[in-house]
């Protein structure tokens, strides 16, 4: 099959959905820029024009509100926030408004809105240019939150998000943009709310999201050589969680390492640990191990960054803790 990059997969999905449905449009800061959103919006302006590809003033809150309004009027906006850190400015619109609208108005009207939040970090960018906010959004009833880890899912989940009748937070990480993978040329969808087993194994279950999925696979490969057989689950969606795929795997392995690209405290890894403890506690042979960001803002210095962000080695360490705990 044809191989394309993760960022091209996002771009292609956007282009194809705009071609297919004239109600789809793109709005956000930097969508006319050659670099602001990576290459994920390349050529869209030339193809669809300024009415359907709207680069905006630096007014995150109002632009989010405008996208919500457009969705209420029957359009299907793809709103892009080129850095998740700036999405704090939009919380009233996303959380109070978009997430609640369908419920608080008795189901009379819905908000078919995709909000792309781009994680852009590393490179000594520091605390306000580094954050991953999936846990905050996953906390909110009425939002779906997806985090593709492969080019295939980047396209398929964006298609699903655009087709969804509800607000979907689509989080893509620039650390994945150059990754290449098999991507069909035609439009296809990947279901929201379904994880996937990336590698089968029997000794330890590793549940991961986003860039920690490839890191987990590398860890599994290394450990395989040492006779440790890891099962790697790519969550793909962090809200609603695919509990079944996690439970079934942990019932088999009895050991669990959860890897999240956000903070550990009150985060996705905490939720998954709680669910496993509540539901299948008796299956666990050892305490659950978590790989996530420490309870600290993102530092700038690359020396500190190296400590801060988990990777293959952090995951291997966590797995070894599992194996050697009894």
């Amino acid at each position, binding site marked *: 099959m044809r191989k394309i990059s993760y960022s091209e997969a996002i771009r292609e999905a956007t282009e194809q959905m705009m071609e297919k449905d004239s109600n789809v449009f793109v709005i956000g800061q930097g969508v006319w820029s050659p670099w602001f959103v990576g290459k994920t919006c390349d050529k869209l302006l030339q193809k669809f024009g300024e009415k359907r590809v709207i680069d905006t*003033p630096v007014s995150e809150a109002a632009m989010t*509100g*405008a996208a919500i309004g457009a969705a*209420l009027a029957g359009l299907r906006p793809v709103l892009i926030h080129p850095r998740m850190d700036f999405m704090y400015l939009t919380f009233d*619109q996303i959380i109070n408004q978009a997430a609640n609208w369908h419920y608080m*108005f008795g189901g009379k009207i819905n908000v078919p809105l995709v909000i792309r939040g781009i994680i852009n970090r590393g490179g000594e960018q520091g605390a306000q240019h580094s954050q991953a906010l999936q846990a905050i959004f996953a906390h909110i009833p009425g939002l779906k939150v997806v985090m593709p880890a492969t080019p295939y899912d980047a396209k398929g989940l964006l298609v699903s998000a655009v087709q969804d*009748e509800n607000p979907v937070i689509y989080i893509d990480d620039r650390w994945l943009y150059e990754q290449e993978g098999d991507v069909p040329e035609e439009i296809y969808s990947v279901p929201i709310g379904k994880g996937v087993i990336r590698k089968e194994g029997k000794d330890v279950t590793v549940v991961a999201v986003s860039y920690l999925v490839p890191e987990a696979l590398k860890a599994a490969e290394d450990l395989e050589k040492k006779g440790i057989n890891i099962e790697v689950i790519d969550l793909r969606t962090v809200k609603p969680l695919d509990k079944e795929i996690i439970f079934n795997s942990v019932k088999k392995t009895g050991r669990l390492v959860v890897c999240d690209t956000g903070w550990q405290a009150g985060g996705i890894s905490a939720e998954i640990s709680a669910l496993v403890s509540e539901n299948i506690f008796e299956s666990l042979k050892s305490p659950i191990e978590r790989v996530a960001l420490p309870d600290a803002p993102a530092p700038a210095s690359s020396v500190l960054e190296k400590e801060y962000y988990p990777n293959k080695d952090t995951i291997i360490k966590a797995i070894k803790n599992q194996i050697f705990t009894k």
Partner: protein
Amino acid sequence: MLNIEKEILIKMYETMVRIRRFEERAGELVAKGEIKTPCHLYIGEEAVAAGVCQALERDDYIFGNHRSHGHYIAKGGDIKSLMAELFCKATGCSKGKGGSMHIIAPEIGLLGTPPIVAASIPIAVGTALASSIKNENKVSVSFFGDGATNEGVFYESLNFAALKKLPIIFVCENNLYSTHMPLAKILADTSIAKKASAFGLPGIQIDGNNAIEVYQAAKEAINLARNGGGPTLIECKTYRWRGHVGFSDDLDKGLRSKEELDYWMAKCPIKRLEEELIKDNLLSQEEKEEISQKIEKEVERAVQFAKESPYPEEAELSENIFKDV
């Protein structure tokens, strides 16, 4: 009178009477404890909603806020569903999940009334943006209070709407108070209309207790917007007779003077239009009485409907979190 058809004037008058009676009745039920959802009553401000909505088409969009019973009624929403929502019953316009502060009537273009101050201003810009993208003729109206002009999204929204020449009217209902705070204590410059000039928009200040003036100003702004001329900011000076929330006039709380309230009650928007209509022989005493009785019955039927309606089923708790495909 003033080149406005009699039918329009009478409809506006009826709308104001309907809002007034509905709100008075809601206030009584709040006082009795039969309505528990926090109600922000619109009494005294009727001319704004009635005048603006009279100038709109049925499928034009409007958005409101925490004080939106008047907008709902003026746009033509069903008052039985509204009263039922105040009782938080299953038959309410938001199925009892919204209460007074979250009301909706998409069938007549009211797409929501979120009570977070200024929140619906950019959302109304969004429906206007949709009209522009789809090349539709629909106009959007955002109703908000004076307090909302202290929120950042207000300015962000004015800028973007002006930049893209979107078909939207920003209607500020300046009732002189932001909750308990008088305007002069919260705005460095109390002219709200003037703020439009920073964005190159027309901004006008009008007597919000004069329904005819409101209607004419709205009509002009709507025509401009519908013909690609972009937004207008209309500041309507008005006054709420009751407190920020609830049935009381709040005089006992020392938040405003009796003299001030009396002054504004003497400027009652309904009495004002009524006197003009009678003077110009457009409304007789008998017709006035008929309207009053008709609306009295409508409101009583709404109260009865609301009281007799069932509460939501328990299962409703987890319904409508997402729209299923």
